[in-house]
């Protein structure tokens, strides 16, 4: 574990030839809970893959599987940890054994406590209970510098919104009727967002969150 923590996280852009970090594929093929959906296809994905590998090398899988799920409020036995690579974050999907419950452990590639707090955690705290429509619920966050954070990296534990990302619209896709269905619901989202101005109470709630 110490070896993992002592490894510095590489900064973008990575040079795979000069990096001592293992590729994401080699990490995923090693012993561990990781599974992978597909191989990287282009250069961008390779860079992201190396970032992901650095994170995977650094975190303690025992903590991830046995401790992190408890932060969601109850005990969860995790069966698989699929690895999802997004553009800026590594997403580890915690799937409960025997059920369809899923949580996301979101770890930014660029590890900076301050930016993580202000740019990632704070916005999610703002919207946690604010709207009727669903947003990822923030159960817990940990900072890399926090001695109580056993995972050792900046991370957030979120609930997983299952579904499909809406595909890019074109003139002919999707069908007009389906576009209207989406627009109707996005208009509802707008109405909801603009019906709740920021109040002084919001500020107090946010402060209380960080003093908890």
């Amino acid at each position: 574990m110490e070896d993992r923590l002592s490894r510095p996280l590489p900064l973008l852009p990575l040079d795979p030839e000069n990096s001592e970090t293992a590729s994401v594929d080699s990490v995923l093929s090693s012993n561990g809970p990781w599974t992978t959906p597909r191989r990287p296809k282009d250069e961008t994905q390779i860079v992201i893959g190396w970032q992901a590998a650095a994170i995977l090398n650094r975190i303690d899988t025992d903590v991830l599987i046995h401790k992190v799920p408890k932060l969601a409020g109850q005990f969860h036995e995790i069966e698989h940890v699929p690895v999802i690579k997004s553009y800026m974050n590594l997403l580890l999907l915690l799937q409960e054994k025997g059920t369809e419950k899923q949580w996301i452990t979101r770890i930014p590639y660029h590890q900076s406590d301050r930016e993580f707090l202000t740019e990632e955690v704070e916005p999610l705290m703002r919207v946690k209970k604010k709207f009727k429509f669903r947003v990822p619920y923030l159960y817990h966050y940990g900072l890399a510098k926090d001695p109580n954070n056993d995972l050792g990296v900046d991370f957030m534990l979120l609930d997983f919104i299952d579904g499909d990302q809406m595909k890019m619209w074109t003139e002919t896709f999707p069908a007009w009727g389906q576009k209207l269905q989406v627009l109707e619901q996005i208009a509802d989202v707008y109405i909801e967002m603009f019906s709740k101005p920021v109040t002084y109470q919001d500020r107090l709630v946010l402060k209380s969150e960080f003093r908890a």
Partner: protein
Amino acid sequence: MSSELDDNARTLTVLDANNDLEGMQQDFNDFEIPPTITASLWYHRLADKAIRGKIERLLAEDDAERTEEMHTTMEARLQDLLTLLLMRSLIPTITVGKYNDSPFYITHPDLHNRNIILEGYQVEEANIPGCWRHVWTGQDPDIQGRSSRRLVRSPGRDKLKLAGIVDWDAAHPLPLQAAAIWPKFLETLPGAEFPDLPSDYEASDMTAEKDAFLEILRAKEVERTGCTIVSDLISHGSWERDFLTVALRRGDVRIKWWQWWKGQQVYTHNKHIFVQHELRLDDVHLMRTGLCGFLKHAENNRVIQQCQGQTLIWKILYELDRLEILAIESCWLPYAERWLTEEAPVSPALKVNLKWWITSEENRHPMPGAWPASDCGSEEFELEKQVPLEADNSIRFMLGPEDEDTDDELETIEDTNSALLYAYHLKNPIGG
């Protein structure tokens, strides 16, 4: 649902265990909400933050922090700084005064396709099973060969249903007119398009979709509130406001904004930095701060070491003129000329370890106010009269000698007059 768990059951990270983290916590809580600030002031502060950040990086002594700047040419750095100043001066022209005092809202400013999660549908031929549907593929299957693709409803579903909205990283309180923008899946900004779009992707202008969205939103607004403020703001000038907001935050978008602004017919006859009636004391010093900061940086890095003293100032004037954004406005002209041609305010600044910081303390500055009309075009430039000695207008300057041995002589000058007079004093010491 799990999101309904009692917060008390959660265990949040204990931040107080570390002083550094506690410091971050303080920053964290330092956000403003109405009625503390107005929309106009919010835009100005956004610009100020960007300009300060730019200057800070230019002045950074640590090479690592300056790396980003060192990859660009002096010309590019100067243009970027001036673009920021230009954008700041244009704020009064893009804001809607009617809603200047409106509430702030937390909205999703980046509502593009990937952040909208829909329940139970799939794209024909896209056989991405289960949890891997969110995998970054780099290739959007419905973009290529899109003509043959259709959404297929899952069995038992009558319509597409919104499952949720993700990626709230940019969800900060925004004034109404900054929050009321098009969803990004209907209209994108230059420089802020998706990074993985295929080169052959032809974006649609989405005119019909936008009209439909406005019609739906307007009807819902009327039903709920009896008015159409949000939809009206979206349909009038929201793209320009959003473009400016994003460009103030992102350098890559700022380049596109500059290109867009240069091409605007409305400005071709007068490509100046507009400093309009909302000119405040801050604007004056921000402008000079930017120039001084850049000059200091340029000199430190021997970028233009061949230019000294007056020549250095004329070099800047030349750049301003070449970029066609020479700062000229009726009541501002005397001041601009004075700063840029007077050796006193600029040249001494180059000889000291100068950091011009406008304080960011809450409520430090009042609402942007009109520059006193009686001062416009005054032949007599008397600092004592131009800058009122009011507590609310005081600006903190940190000036100190360049020599590190005398760092303890740093002094804080609490008002603008003193700072300017200090600069004069450096040039023309009493008895010197």
